[in-house]
């Protein structure tokens, strides 16, 4: 009888200071050294501040890759690609920020491959504060003798982080053809369009502020998501995806922070998002992303 075994690989700690980009020091923790492939279903991240202070969730970015293939389109917003079931759990009572990237299809990791992780603290911790970072891959070992596939499916994430809008301004910003894209020569299956709205009522940089979707507690925040900020979207052929101006939280459902679309994007295809609206106070920053799957050779 073949018994499949779960597996958790734990990556070592990196320390991020404000504004810093840093690769996780791979001491072998995220290198799969066994002689059978594993299927990874989740990648988890945790950020521990150097003191009990606020970690500004929307200031966290990540760049991931496996086996020489990128999983993310450079640095992408980590809260964006990890839509939570309950956002209140994102920042725990111990000030530790935890994100879980649940993959729509398990990712095959071959022996001796390493999950490449780089992080960017874009105002997530301010001043002299630093963040300790760790990552885990969670999955299962394939049974000995399992056939080695010729191709495998890897996740793909790209994002558009709009300009920060300060104070009482009219918002008019848009992504371009290098943001929400399929940069490969193969069709990309798109599972979800992801979205969050960074907001900081104090007027400081939104990236260093709370995510409106997670912290929609003041009335003005709600107006912003439900009517103040609107989105339109089209594909690379000009087909309307979101035909007319639609409140941000209406296009991207409030609870899921994502819209499950299950569609194909052609090679070199892209979406263009148009963000419009008005802000009265504080700082607003829209985040939109793609969660898809790419097929690569082994």
């Amino acid at each position, binding site marked *: 009888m073949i018994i499949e075994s779960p597996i958790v690989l734990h990556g070592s700690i990196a320390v991020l200071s404000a504004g810093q980009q840093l690769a996780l020091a791979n001491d072998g923790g995220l290198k799969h050294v066994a002689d059978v492939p594993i299927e990874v279903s989740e990648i988890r991240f945790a950020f521990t501040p150097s003191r009990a202070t606020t970690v500004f969730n929307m200031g966290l970015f990540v760049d991931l890759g496996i086996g020489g293939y990128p999983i993310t389109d450079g640095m992408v917003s980590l809260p964006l690609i990890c839509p939570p079931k309950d956002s209140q759990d994102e920042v725990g009572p111990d000030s530790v920020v935890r994100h879980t990237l649940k993959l729509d299809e398990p990712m095959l990791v071959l022996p001796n491959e390493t999950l490449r992780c780089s992080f960017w603290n874009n105002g997530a911790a301010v001043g002299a504060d630093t963040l300790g970072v760790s990552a885990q891959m969670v999955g299962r070992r394939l049974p000995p003798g399992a056939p080695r596939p010729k191709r495998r499916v890897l996740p793909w994430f790209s994002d558009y982080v709009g300009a920060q809008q300060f104070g009482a301004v009219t918002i008019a910003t848009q992504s371009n053809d290098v943001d929400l894209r399929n940069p490969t020569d193969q069709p990309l299956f798109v599972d979800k369009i992801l979205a969050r709205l960074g907001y900081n009522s104090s007027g400081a940089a939104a990236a260093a502020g709370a995510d409106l979707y997670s912290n929609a507690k003041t*009335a003005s925040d709600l107006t912003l998501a439900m*009517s103040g900020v609107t989105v339109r979207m089209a594909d690379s052929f000009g087909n309307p995806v979101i035909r007319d101006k639609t409140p941000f939280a209406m296009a991207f459902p409030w609870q899921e922070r994502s819209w499950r679309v299950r*569609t194909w994007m052609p090679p070199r295809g892209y979406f263009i998002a148009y963000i419009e609206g008005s802000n009265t106070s504080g700082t607003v920053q829209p985040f939109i992303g793609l969660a898809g799957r790419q097929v690569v050779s082994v």
Partner: protein
Amino acid sequence: MAVSAETLPLVMTSPAASLAYTGAAGFSGTGLPLDANKLSNVFKRPIEIREIRFAVVTPLSTLTADMWFGGVIQAILEIAGHSVTQDYVPVGVLGSPQQPVTEAVSDAANVGTTPSIANYFRWVLPKPVVLPPETGVRGNIRLDAMNMLSNGKNGNMTTAFTAAVTTTVVGRYLDRGFKLPRTQAIPYATAWVGNRDGTRSQQLNLTNPFEMPLQVEKFVGRANEIVSATSMIDGAHLVGNITMRGASGCDIVGVPTPFDRVFDYQTRSLRVPHTLPRKGVSHQVFLRDVQDNYLWPIVSMIGYREVAV
């Protein structure tokens, strides 16, 4: 990849319609039409509708606590010329809330410092509906004050306010060569809004008005509760006991049972797929042991019928 491919997604939005509540007795707002042009299939290919969403925002500085608009914001809808609702149906009972707590996206502790409260409702249709070119979603939205001024236990809802309602239709494009089906499942929603004077639903409330069988998917049960002059919530947990009699004459709920146990409190629904075979066949809801008259229970029946197209 073991996935089924679908074509390009699509969102169509009718801009915010501003509805007003005057705070006057006997008020029932006039319906405003949805923007038919914005909700039309102008793409020269079929599209498919899967979901209808409603967002409600009110800019009112005098509201000091939660507001649940699911009972008083009501919609009358048709898709591709077919009726989807029987008269106006409260938007809060069209679909089950994904997460009831976050449906009302306001937070009582923080509302009031800045004027705005928002609600968000989703109706995932029982089955997707194909919209041929040149057809669309039509309808009206209204704010029905129902019994907000009916000597509620906790006071009347006397505060005048406006509510902006945005309606969004979510679906996807179909291939240009997509062959239209001979029949398709057109959704249908009908509702009974109870009140202190009538403690049972009437024959026309939860009925099949069509010549063909109506496939019932579920009942949704919620309640509009006046909390104070400036707030109202979903008070399904406060309704008290009900019984329900089925169209066949048999009891659906024979023993007086708490409202929030009949309609599962997480989903606010009673999912019991069955068929109402012909026109005029209806279910009835009876309120028992109702605690007071500041609650207005609402029970909807959601389903679909096969229509030749």
